[in-house]
């Protein structure tokens, strides 16, 4: 049985034997994952369990010690130190949304979105800007196109962060707790946009503490514990009826924080 059962279709993301240590401390211990094209994988787990590190290994922001990552047709084996070209191809297939958006403060909203397509992908300006405007219109931020990130609310900033990722036409979207730095009343708009993207068929890996979002949107949930995928399955199972005691404790703590 492949880890992605009972879902079907070829995997867009395949991870095998991913390990990562920081000095003597092993943070990821042999992680295997598959994400079918068009599906959403939610990654949950307690603080320090290795979720961010896992995500950053997928696009080479961290270089794993061993293991393979394949996104679409690009496969990188980290047994040897990967070449810049290999990392570049991996990054070309994926885009990441950060917890703290990391928008470029000296660039306007529009420039943040068009920077990658123009400068890196060298696509024609007219086309890139039209597309960026369409994206902005879609999230209701078209009239903020010339604002600087510091002039936006946290929720707006994070939506621009998502648009910046979408504009690159990636095959895979990576999210690292995109709402956990936001005030509660700003979370909704961001989650709504992410829901829409899931419905449109974007392939996404989302590290999140929003269990409701994981339940509603994710096809698969991976519970990460001490650098390993301790439980993987559909949300109804992992979040609704966890097999492992650690998962059960985690879900209980999140649902009843007191």
């Amino acid at each position: 049985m492949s880890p992605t059962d009972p879902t079907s279709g070829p995997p867009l993301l395949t991870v095998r034997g991913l390990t990562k240590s920081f000095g003597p401390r092993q943070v990821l211990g042999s992680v295997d994952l598959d994400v079918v094209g068009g599906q959403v994988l939610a990654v949950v787990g307690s603080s320090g369990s290795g979720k961010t590190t896992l995500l950053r290994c997928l696009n080479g922001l961290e270089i794993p010690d061993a293991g393979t990552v394949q996104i679409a047709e690009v496969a990188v084996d980290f047994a040897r130190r990967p070449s810049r070209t290999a990392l570049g191809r991996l990054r070309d297939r994926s885009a990441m949304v950060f917890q703290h958006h990391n928008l470029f403060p000296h660039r306007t909203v529009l420039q943040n979105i068009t920077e990658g397509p123009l400068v890196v992908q060298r696509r024609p300006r007219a086309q890139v800007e039209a597309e960026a405007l369409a994206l902005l219109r879609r999230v209701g931020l078209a009239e903020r196109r010339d604002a600087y990130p510091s002039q936006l609310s946290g929720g707006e900033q994070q939506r621009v962060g998502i648009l910046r990722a979408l504009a690159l036409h990636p095959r895979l979207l990576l999210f690292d707790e995109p709402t956990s730095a936001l005030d509660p009343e700003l979370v909704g708009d961001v989650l709504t946009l992410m829901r829409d993207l899931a419905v449109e068929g974007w392939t996404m890996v989302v590290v999140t503490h929003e269990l409701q979002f994981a339940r509603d949107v994710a096809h698969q949930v991976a519970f990460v514990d001490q650098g390993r995928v301790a439980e993987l399955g559909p949300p109804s199972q992992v979040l609704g009826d966890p097999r492992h005691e650690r998962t059960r404790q985690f879900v209980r703590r999140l649902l009843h924080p007191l």
Partner: protein
Amino acid sequence: MPPVDWDLALRSLGPIALGAVRGTVPLAVVSFAGGMLLAVGVALARLSRHRVLSGAGRAYVSVIRGTPLLVQLFVVFYGLPSLGLVIDPWPSAIIAFSLNVGGYGAEIVRAAILSVPKGQWEAAHVIGMSHRQSLTRIVLPQAARVSVPPLSNTFIALVKDTSLASLILVTELFRRAQQVAAFSQQFMLLYLEAALVYWVICLVLSAGQGRLEKRLDRYVAH
């Protein structure tokens, strides 16, 4: 105290101002430009993972900051000829001042680059930028904003330090004042006049710094 010779004060203003326009200002501007090119290069060398490169950068900064500017100036102008390398006063001054600004500027630029959050590099990498693109398009523009105030200080200090060039025979503001003073024997008057002209130049520069900061500030939240 003898009465102020206003006539002399007025007549000497011409040569002194000419010394500023033909000497002090171009000397400072050219040296600063050269120094900044050096500074960025040395800052990048110091930040590089390459041991020899970063070591060389560190040594350079250490020597420049650890020796008096006047000595640096004399080494270039009076010292190098004994090695068979004779350089005219003007190029000597530009070389010495550029090297000096390069050393101080490198530390400012290095700190400014380090002050840009790591997430900016990562965001640039994630959208596919190379190291060079990330540096020139994302990191350096933000570092520039941070380094304007300290670099302005460096520039203003340089303007005043160019008076040392009078000691290697460059005809600039202060040397003009000295010449008139020697001729008229009105030392107090002429040196105060020179001081006043330096001060005015620095006032103009400070105003320019304010405007530049405002311009670069447009993206910072208020």
